[in-house]
């Protein structure tokens, strides 16, 4: 749709601008303030320059948390995206069963994050959980509170359980928008199942798949509540991801300076990725409209 140029439209956007400025820019300025100052309470500040940044950039703790975070996000994407596409391809196309599957699949998405944590905390326990109990009965030594590997597996399976449906739902919506004529043409050409997928379905899903990958990347990159409830970042620090580390530093130990410097770097990374996402997406929109 071609839009008209109208600078008065700013008045319509103004409420959003004021509100988001109050809830985003003001807090961010506080963070910036802390990042460059040192404080001993009572609102007395001492200029610290870039000391906090230097401290954080060279700290092993941050490097380890960042490493764990990247590993986590990569594993999550590698499992959830192919699995989500696979599920979407197998979903019923219409009728009662399609609605039935949609509703059931969306269910995990709408459970409060901490309840997701609680569910898996209970489910995985050796004494009272079905999963833990079954594994123990099969003679597998599984204990997510003591063993780092088990803790990782639990957190990853939990995330797959929680979010694969999102990828599947988006892909399903993308698949639904493909006209039947495409499939009929493929049939006439005697295309194999694989080439139908590769040359019809995958290109048509490109837009939604991009959104799915980026939403999953972002949300897994700032995951906090679920692993916090299940493992509390432990055993040791083995499942302490960036957000958990940050919350520990800021609200647990009140190391405001380093925490603020950390926040700013964290936020810049997010900003960069969002920008790439936005550029690619608007370009896709433009291509489609041509």
């Amino acid at each position, binding site marked *: 749709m071609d839009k008209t140029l109208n600078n008065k*439209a700013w008045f319509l956007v103004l409420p959003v601008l004021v509100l988001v400025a109050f809830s985003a820019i003001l807090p961010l300025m506080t963070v910036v303030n802390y990042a460059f100052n040192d404080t001993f309470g009572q609102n007395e500040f001492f200029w610290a320059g870039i000391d906090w940044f230097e401290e954080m950039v060279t700290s092993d703790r941050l490097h380890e948390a960042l490493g764990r975070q990247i590993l986590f996000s990569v594993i999550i994407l590698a499992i959830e995206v192919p699995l989500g596409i696979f599920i979407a391809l197998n979903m019923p196309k219409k009728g009662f069963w399609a609605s039935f599957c949609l509703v059931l699949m969306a269910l995990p998405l709408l459970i409060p994050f901490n309840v997701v944590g609680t569910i898996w905390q209970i489910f995985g326990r050796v004494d009272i959980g079905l999963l833990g109990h079954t594994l123990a009965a099969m003679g597998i030594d599984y204990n997510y509170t003591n063993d780092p590997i088990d803790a990782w597996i639990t957190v990853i399976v939990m995330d797959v359980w929680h979010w694969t449906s999102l990828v599947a739902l988006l892909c399903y919506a993308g698949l639904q928008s493909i006209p039947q004529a495409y499939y009929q043409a493929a049939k006439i050409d005697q295309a194999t199942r694989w080439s139908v997928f590769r040359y019809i379905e995958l290109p048509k899903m490109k837009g939604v798949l991009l959104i799915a990958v980026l939403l999953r990347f972002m949300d897994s990159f700032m995951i906090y509540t679920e692993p916090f409830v299940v493992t509390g970042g432990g055993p040791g620090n083995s499942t302490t991801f960036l957000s958990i580390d940050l919350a520990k530093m800021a609200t647990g130990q009140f190391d405001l300076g380093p925490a603020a410097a950390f926040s700013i770097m964290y936020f810049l990374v997010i900003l960069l990725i969002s920008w790439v996402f936005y550029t690619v997406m608007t370009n896709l929109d433009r291509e489609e409209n041509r």
Partner: protein
Amino acid sequence: MRIRSSAIVMTVYLLFLLIPIYWLINMSLKTNTEITSTFSVWPQTFTLQNYVTILTDPSWYMGYVNSLIYVTMNVVISLTVALPAAYAFSRYNFMGDKHLFFWLLTNRMAPPAVFALPFFQLYSSVGLFDTHIAIALAHCLFNVPLAVWILEGFMRGVPKEIDETAYIDGYSFPKFFIRIFMPLIASGIGVAAFFCFMFSWVELLLSRTLATVNAKSIAATMTRTVSASGMDWGVLAAAGVLTIVPGALVIYFVRNYIAKGFALGRV
């Protein structure tokens, strides 16, 4: 043959999704002694005592009330400011519109952990700490951008000729917007409201940071009980089941729009 194999895939996947939820419901219907002493796939001594505990103890059920209050406030605020903005984005070009739209997106992507501490200080300093409106405003951080994006997606589908016809017929902008335009995108408003509701309902970090007593959310109530009494699994499971109920109820009405909502209105 193909139909059968896909049915198997879906069955396995749905079982994978539902078994943990079933286990939670199962636990919520058992007594604590049964949970810790015997292991059973269904409740041996069926009890509703856990639910009774939650629905009669103010420290539990006030959690739900508080959550519902701030979630409702948040949905109302988000939609009120997002509707005109989404209209502006979908209909007009104006100075800096692309940058503004991008900036809104970054707020949806911002990690709440970054904002937790500044929010705490900001709202303490203006005397809003531990009030419902504080949490509602804080959740606007990610819900307003989301609402703008979803509504913009729906509004793009409404032909511009409708606006023009209405203006020629002498409708003023507010009258046109409320009487003609809003009914046209009613489903979009419903979906946006649903997503604001959901994301505000599932959020824990900010609501826990911004409230201690008066506006304490159900999510915060649950985490604190875990650390305090430790082993009251039955009540914890029952509380969990009760938090799933509202989502499960509304999801049925928006089932065909879920994907569109999650895709920020661009499917």
